[in-house]
């Protein structure tokens, strides 16, 4: 689609356009599925550099002036180094921040401007936002998996939830017996599908997947994310949070490059075909660092980038085979 036509579709003040689109992204009912504008999250803390008793409180921003959008029908990958605050971003979009967090900026979901209270009413609900977490540690170790996938039933909807759980298990190739297992009995592959089923049990419109394929090598991870592709194709939106740029380029429609608490560039995957299509110097450096390119840190690349991305870029080929072996189980 052409850039100009897109702008014309916007009816809200969200005429953003610090990002570029791909064919699959469209503005249903004239707005983004999710739009985050100028989001900052800070914590009040004592100045760590000041002498002990003279330390004054100041606000330290973990996320600063961050903007990102997710359209219906697309997977947007948020790519950044581990430990750089990506999970905090996920929490914030779900309205799950700590009471002492200082949050400014706007979150729009499905055309509505959301605060912490209104986000609480859409997370986990039909047509709302669902989280797909990283690991099986997000399941209650003492509760049977089936019951957890069904989730918390309010009065009178227990049987409907059970029926939905059976359907989801069928669709994702999970045997009925898996429902009676405890989380510690799940294999890696089962756990991933169970976590996805947990999210889908709420019939969400937007999925936020926080490193959903830990320990998988690239090909298996891409395969595992086919389910997200299907979800997006059926009219949902996916925000895929990952540290793996290669994975992001293989499965996502658009890539948002996360660095130092903000999105430095939000662009279509196609832009990564050539460094000339990328605007920000960090994105360009990232492009050069990819194994199939010249593998060099072109231009002035600061040390922090190397620390952050050096490991993950090379991760694809070096994963021990035992991890992928477990996956087949």
């Amino acid at each position: 689609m052409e850039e100009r036509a897109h702008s014309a579709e916007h009816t809200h003040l969200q005429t953003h356009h610090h990002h570029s689109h791909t064919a699959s992204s469209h503005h249903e009912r004239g707005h983004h599925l999710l739009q985050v504008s100028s989001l900052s999250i800070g914590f009040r803390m004592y100045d760590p550099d000041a002498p002990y008793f003279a330390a004054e409180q100041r606000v330290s921003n973990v996320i600063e002036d961050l903007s990102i959008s997710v359209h219906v029908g697309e997977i947007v990958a948020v790519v950044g180094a581990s430990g750089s605050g990506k999970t905090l971003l996920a929490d914030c979009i779900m309205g799950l921040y700590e009471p002492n967090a200082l949050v400014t900026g706007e979150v729009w979901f499905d055309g509505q401007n959301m605060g912490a209270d209104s986000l609480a009413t859409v997370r986990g609900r039909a047509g709302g936002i669902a989280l797909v977490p990283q690991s099986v540690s997000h399941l209650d170790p003492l509760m049977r998996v089936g019951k957890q996938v069904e989730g918390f039933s309010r009065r009178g909807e227990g049987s409907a939830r059970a029926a939905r759980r059976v359907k989801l298990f069928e669709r994702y190739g999970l045997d009925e017996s898996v429902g009676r297992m405890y989380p510690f009995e799940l294999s890696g592959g089962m756990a991933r599908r169970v976590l996805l089923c947990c999210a889908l049990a709420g019939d969400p419109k937007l999925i936020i997947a926080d490193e959903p394929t830990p320990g998988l090598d690239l090909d298996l991870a891409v395969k595992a994310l086919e389910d997200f592709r299907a979800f997006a194709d059926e009219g949902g939106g996916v925000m895929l949070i990952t540290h793996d740029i290669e994975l992001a380029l293989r499965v996502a429609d658009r890539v948002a490059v996360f660095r130092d608490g903000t999105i430095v560039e939000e662009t279509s995957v196609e832009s990564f075909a050539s460094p000339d299509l990328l605007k920000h110097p960090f994105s360009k450096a990232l492009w050069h660092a990819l194994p199939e390119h010249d593998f060099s840190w072109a231009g002035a690349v600061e040390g922090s980038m190397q620390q952050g991305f050096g490991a993950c870029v090379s991760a694809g080929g070096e994963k021990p085979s035992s991890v992928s072996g477990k996956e087949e189980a």
Partner: protein
Amino acid sequence: MGKFVVKHIVRLTLLLLAVSAIAFGLIAASPVDPVQANVGQAAWVSMSEAKRAQLAEYWGVNTPIWERYVNWLGAVLHGDLGTSLRYNAPVADVIAWRAGNTLALMAVAWVVSGVLGFALGVVAGVKRGGVVDKVVKAYCFVLASTPAFWLGLLFLMVFAVGLGWFPIGFSVPIGKAAADVTFAEVAHHMVLPAITLSVVGVAQIALHTREKTIDVMESDYMRFARARGLTTWQAVRRHGLRNLALPAITLQFASISEIFGGSVLVEQVFSYPGLGQAAVTAALGGDAALLCAIAVFSAALVFGGNLIANILYGVIDPRIRKGEVSR
């Protein structure tokens, strides 16, 4: 299963042997002279040297300690716990009567402190940093550092002497025939000692539960539960309590030893005729047979509590239960 039973029986036997030997050794080493203590101060002073020597011979003062222990052990294995010097009755009878009082007292204190401590700990942990948390923490720190006997004295002064709501001691009304005592009267006499014991026990349980609750609240599965639309309290009800139950059970059964220790002091303060009071009497009177029997009894009680905790842990936690099966 058979292996499990045998292993624990062997352990219990060794434990009881060790406890009885140590109790025996301690009482032999104590400066209290059992002969003097039992004859009475006045009689002892007016007694001739020859008479004293004769008494010492009669009581077996000069028999070596190991021989006394072996004699005692042999008799116990034949079911004879010996005769209490201080109560002038078979040890088995003394313990049987007093154990009833003590166990009733302990059971009430154990349940009250467990339930109350757990509830306070969970609320404080969930509302960490809030007003409720601060109040609970202050309460726990004050009480955890309060000696049980002092609190008992305070309760006696305020509620028994000052307000007159409760009797000042004993387990039944003074001067009433045992057959005429009603359940209400027994309960009435138990209130103050039980409250003293519970109030002190609550502090430990609440503080431990609070720590555990904070861990659970910060866990991935609680975060995910809230991400799926549960409110904090719904998540606590559905996932939190389940995961808190395991450590709470261990703690609760391990606290039997603390409650028993507390009951010794509390019974003394309230002149409550239980095992704790008998233990104090036995120790002060050089009553080896009674003291050893009480030591063994309480060791078995605490062992039993820990064993139950172990077994319940395996029954409740699927990771242990299923792990055992597949092994």
